[in-house]
């Protein structure tokens, strides 16, 4: 009886472990897909921003002033080229140049201006959602069970993408995406 009992218990434990491993694997797979989707969205907004910045620099240098237009074109080109290198740094630099532009650019067509504002808003959203997905993934992968079982060990741990995506230099001015904690302790 005892040996049968031991076998039964062992089988039960094994089943539970297998089910748990399967479930954890499902979660990890789901999270990996979410990180991928979030990255695609973030990448699209970053490219869009760089494209709009190039357009602004190329077709409206008079409105910006030559120096600003030059800096913008350089920053946008840098951001575009940096896909493999330190992208955060390049994107931060582009964001900085865009923030330094005067708030009112009457000589620039309204459609381009709204496009740029909308892209910056969506960029901030996409970045938050991407980092959120990364956080969830890292939290689960850092848990005991996935570490012991080595689930998804072959996959690289996703990295946070940290840039300053404020649209305006003033810290507490209109905040189109309602970034939490802006200007607050």
């Amino acid at each position, binding site marked *: 009886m005892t040996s049968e009992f031991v076998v039964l218990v062992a089988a039960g434990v094994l089943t539970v472990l297998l089910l748990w491993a399967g479930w954890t694997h499902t979660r990890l797979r789901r999270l990996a897909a979410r990180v991928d989707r979030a990255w695609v969205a973030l990448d699209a907004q970053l490219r869009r921003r760089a494209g709009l910045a190039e357009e602004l620099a190329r077709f409206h240098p008079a409105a910006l002033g030559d120096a600003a237009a030059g800096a913008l074109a350089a920053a946008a080109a840098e951001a575009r080229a940096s896909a493999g290198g330190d992208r955060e740094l390049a994107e931060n630099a582009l964001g900085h140049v865009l923030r330094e532009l005067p708030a009112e650019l009457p000589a620039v067509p309204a459609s381009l201006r709204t496009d740029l504002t909308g892209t910056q808003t*969506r960029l901030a*959203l996409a970045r938050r959602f991407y980092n959120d997905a990364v956080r969830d993934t890292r939290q689960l992968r850092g848990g005991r069970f996935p570490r012991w079982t080595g689930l998804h060990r072959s996959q690289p741990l996703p990295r946070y993408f940290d840039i300053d995506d404020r649209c305006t230099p003033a810290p507490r001015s209109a905040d189109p995406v309602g*970034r939490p904690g802006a200007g607050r302790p």
Partner: protein
Amino acid sequence: MRIGLVCPYRWDVPGGVQYHVRDLAQTLRGMGHHVEILTPAEREESLTDPFITFAGRTVPVPYNGSMASLQFGPVSAARVRRWLREGRFDVVHVHEPATPSVSLLVCMIATGPIVATFHAATTRSKWLAAVAPLVQPWLEKISGRIAVSDFARRVQVEHLGGDAVILPNGVHVPFFAEGPTLPGYGRGTGGPPTLGFLGRYDEPRKGLPVLLRALRTVVQEHPDARLLVAGRGDAAELDRLVGEELRPHVALLGEISEADKAAMLRSVDVYVAPNLLGESFGVILIEAMAARAPIVASDLDAFSRVLDDGAAGVLVPRGDAAALGSALCDLLADPARRAELADRGAAVAGRYDWQVLTRRILAVYETVLPPDGGVVTAGPVDDFPAVPPTGTAAGRPRIRRPPR
């Protein structure tokens, strides 16, 4: 865009989340989107709108002084699955998904972009701390999280470990800004100065006793001042609170409709919010500002945020009747200051207009949509445990089979 909204609370009972979902759906439809709502209700017949789908009844569970509604089980799950299959939504937007409700069921069953809005502020944190590990596996499926306030975001960050974008509750600004006043009252018509109070007047935490004490000071300087009280409560109890001396100065409107509420807010010279305890979000203050009523409010965290740290309204220490009285006297004697506060208030309220907020929510939807399209569907039937996770919860999950 085809949007599915999920409200976890009974549709036929008034509540902040229900109003939020209703107003969001209305505004989205006004912008030309297809919106459907899935919600529980007490009686299926009460859901007359063809865009609203009945999700079943909820089991009310007393929690923390109020009722939390629970809903779980195979029947509800089947309804959710059918709604998702038939709706073919581009995005599903669930509200308050951290409780065992139809919102959590949607998170379990749906495959595709899910957006969630978290409403609860601090009150249910113990409950959340207990359930968070159990629901975490399904909350992980949410692609975009929204919190209605800093407090709601904090609860989310602390207990559920995710970040959220803050998009506050909205207000239909034009509904409050334009329209008639209450008959016999009117701001700026030279009538007697009128104060307004709205809320459950027999609940001490709403602060009416403090306001009544302050009113004694006010009537000494403005002998014809009046106070309008609207809301639910025990009228006899209010009468006792008011007392002989103040009785001619207080008018009880009782429970009023939304239209009358807007009319009342347009009628008063000053709106008073003397609340003593936590309101997570002062929607009523935004409504008052939309109606261009100058505000005197107690210095609760939520109120001072809505009022831009006192720039758009006068803040007084909570529970301090003397300070409230003198603030009211000063404001009633100073029409220029009232006009200035009304202007600032209207500007603040504009930021909370549903039109503005709905555009931001749409930006959230667009961000989580996959670039190649695709709709939200229900996952395979054996995708999740059909019974509520009990005990150590996800203890016996079924293995989800990959579709390919």
